[in-house]
């Protein structure tokens, strides 16, 4: 379980607050207008920003000021989620060993993960020689080998066309199911939410509302969501 306890971060005249729990294994969409604080919330969970007050707890233990790599988290960033100078296999291998000194069994785990996302035979390609969709697949293969119980996705597929994006969201969903991981994804598109989310965190003006089931929220949307969707 992921818990936000009186979390608060102030940057200039912007203040982000969150105080709720996210159940284990949930697939959560984080939605809200631009500048509302969605990415900041993910930065706080990831340890790239430190809160002014409160804490985030994972299975009852506070993260405190632990470094990003000490947290049980896999990331998919919006851009630059792969190193351009490394091959697909190296990019995945980093998830096992940052030094890239992989044992035989670790190397086969990398190949296995690439096969699982449908990239068999493309191990030695660099990101520049892969399509946008294939790059996303490499990043998801890394999430697979990292085997972390929490996956954070910050608009990871926004550069892809709608059909490809849906395909990638399905794959991400599959990966999280396979790992039994909790997944939080920032998105702009309500159709993405339909596709994968059980729960939705609505963020507006820095206030992160407790997660609600998507079906329930659609039936009784907050005014901000109506304005956001434009209906």
């Amino acid at each position: 379980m992921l818990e936000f306890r009186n979390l608060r971060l102030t940057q200039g005249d912007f203040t982000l607050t969150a105080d709720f729990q996210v159940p284990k294994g949930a697939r959560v969409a984080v939605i809200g207008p631009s500048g509302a604080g969605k990415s900041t919330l993910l930065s706080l969970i990831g340890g790239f920003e430190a809160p002014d007050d409160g804490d985030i707890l994972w299975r009852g233990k506070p993260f405190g000021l632990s470094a990003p790599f000490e947290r049980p988290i896999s990331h998919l960033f919006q851009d630059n989620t792969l190193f351009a100078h490394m091959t697909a296999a190296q990019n995945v291998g980093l998830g096992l060993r940052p030094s890239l000194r992989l044992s035989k069994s670790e190397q086969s785990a990398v190949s296995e993960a690439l096969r699982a996302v449908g990239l068999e035979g493309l191990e030695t390609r660099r990101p520049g020689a892969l399509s946008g969709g294939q790059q996303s697949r490499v990043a998801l293969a890394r999430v697979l080998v990292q085997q972390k119980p929490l996956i954070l996705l910050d608009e990871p597929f926004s550069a892809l066309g709608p059909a490809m994006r849906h395909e990638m969201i399905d794959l991400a969903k599959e990966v999280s199911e396979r790992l039994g991981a909790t997944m939080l994804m920032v998105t702009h598109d309500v159709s993405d939410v339909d596709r994968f989310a059980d729960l939705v965190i609505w963020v507006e003006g820095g206030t992160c509302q407790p997660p609600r089931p998507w079906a329930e929220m659609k039936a009784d949307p907050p005014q901000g969501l109506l304005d956001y969707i434009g209906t």
Partner: protein
Amino acid sequence: MAHRVFAIRLWPGLIAAALVAALSLGTLGVVALRAESFSTLSKFDWMAVRFTVVQALISAGLSVILAVPVARGLARRDFYGRRLLITLLGAPFILPTIVAILGLTAVFGKTGFVSIALNWAGLEPISIYGFHGVILAHVFFNLPLATRLLLQGWGAIPSERFRLAASLNFSPRDMFRHIEGPMLKEIMPGAFAVIFLICTTSFAVALTFGGGPKATTVELAIYEAFRYDFNLGKASLLALIQVVICAVAAFVSLKFRVPQVGGAGLDRPVQRFDVHKLSARGVDLFWIMMVSLFLLLPLLAIVLRGAYGVFDLPISVWSAALRSLVTALGSAALAIILSLSLSLSALRWRWLEGIGMTAIAASPLVMGTGLYIVLFAVADPADWALFITALVNAVMSLPFILRAIGPALATTERTYGRLSDSLGLMGWTRVRLVLWPRLRGPVGFSAGLAAALSMGDLGVIALFARPDSATLPLQIYRLMGSYRMDQAMGASLLLLGLSLALFYIFDLWGRRRA
């Protein structure tokens, strides 16, 4: 407050900063302690101060003004060899000063063909020594720099402005008033200030073309106080005056925006609609031809006359070449280590980069004087000549190298910092797997630059070296002094080849994909 993880230890940067500060500011302190009172300055010393400022003003002014028509021609014309010419404009930066000086002598000197042509036409040949020679050499070095700076200004004008001008039927005068003039007004002062600064610290030019009461710069006076009188007190006082001149020039240049000399925006000519008139074509052709000849003829002269002497070089030249190579490689290694440590720590403490930049206003002669005084107390400075040369050259190249490596490092951290942090790529692993591959290009370029600059250095080494342990540029200077011009030309060709080869090899290494 935002919380940042620092993936790499910060102490190497602090050590590097301390070293650079000791060299640029510490030597200044030593010099200040050692300096005599101002009353000991003779009339000739004050003439040197005046000459330093006046020649730098004229050189900078000429370079910047002449660069305007050249840059405009290059900006609006596309022709065969345009890219090559623009690349060539960057060459004087790594060209050893002594080579250019010999080349200019071969073209404009007493027996050069310009003089022969002038004689033939019944005119007085120009004198390459003294005032004219110093200005000529400075314009040779800085006209290309000014041209590149202004060319970037032209490149930065949005193409919509030229389209708008065409649709409003601007005359060349309107074009200048509304579009080109404002750009030049913004860029020219910065270019002028930078070139002024360069011209106050170009010791090698003053050493070879200057001299005598009417054409001695402060740096040359420092050297003479050292070499001829061994008057360290007077050398120190002159060094302080040099520092004041540099500091004022550097302060002024900070007031203006100095555009970066990078590759961006230089490769495409600006699309314009007012260029088809015959008169405009003629003007552009004239200026492009003139600057090409001015740059190429001296180099061509070195190649032609040097090829003749290069197979007939005495052994002393070859051993000097070896010493220069070792010094250049050492200097490049030092420069890269210093700049990488500084830029890594500057991600946390911005001011560290400022310390690395202090060398831009420093004079190698002042640094040399300070180091000499310190070393003189404990050892024979001549024993340290090559090491000191490598070190001072490395520090002098830092301002340029930091501008190549610093932004590349910042970009890499901005792009891959979070990803690296989240994957636990820390410390040495981070350097090996992320930073090094991403920085390979700028590091190769910088190492080439530092090596070439050190290879051609004729500054500190002149203060320190013994007669039997000269570097190649110093050896060439001595050959010139004893009128063995064929050997000097041959050795210059060797030096030119070595400098360009060093730069090219490092740069190529940087560009090769890992």
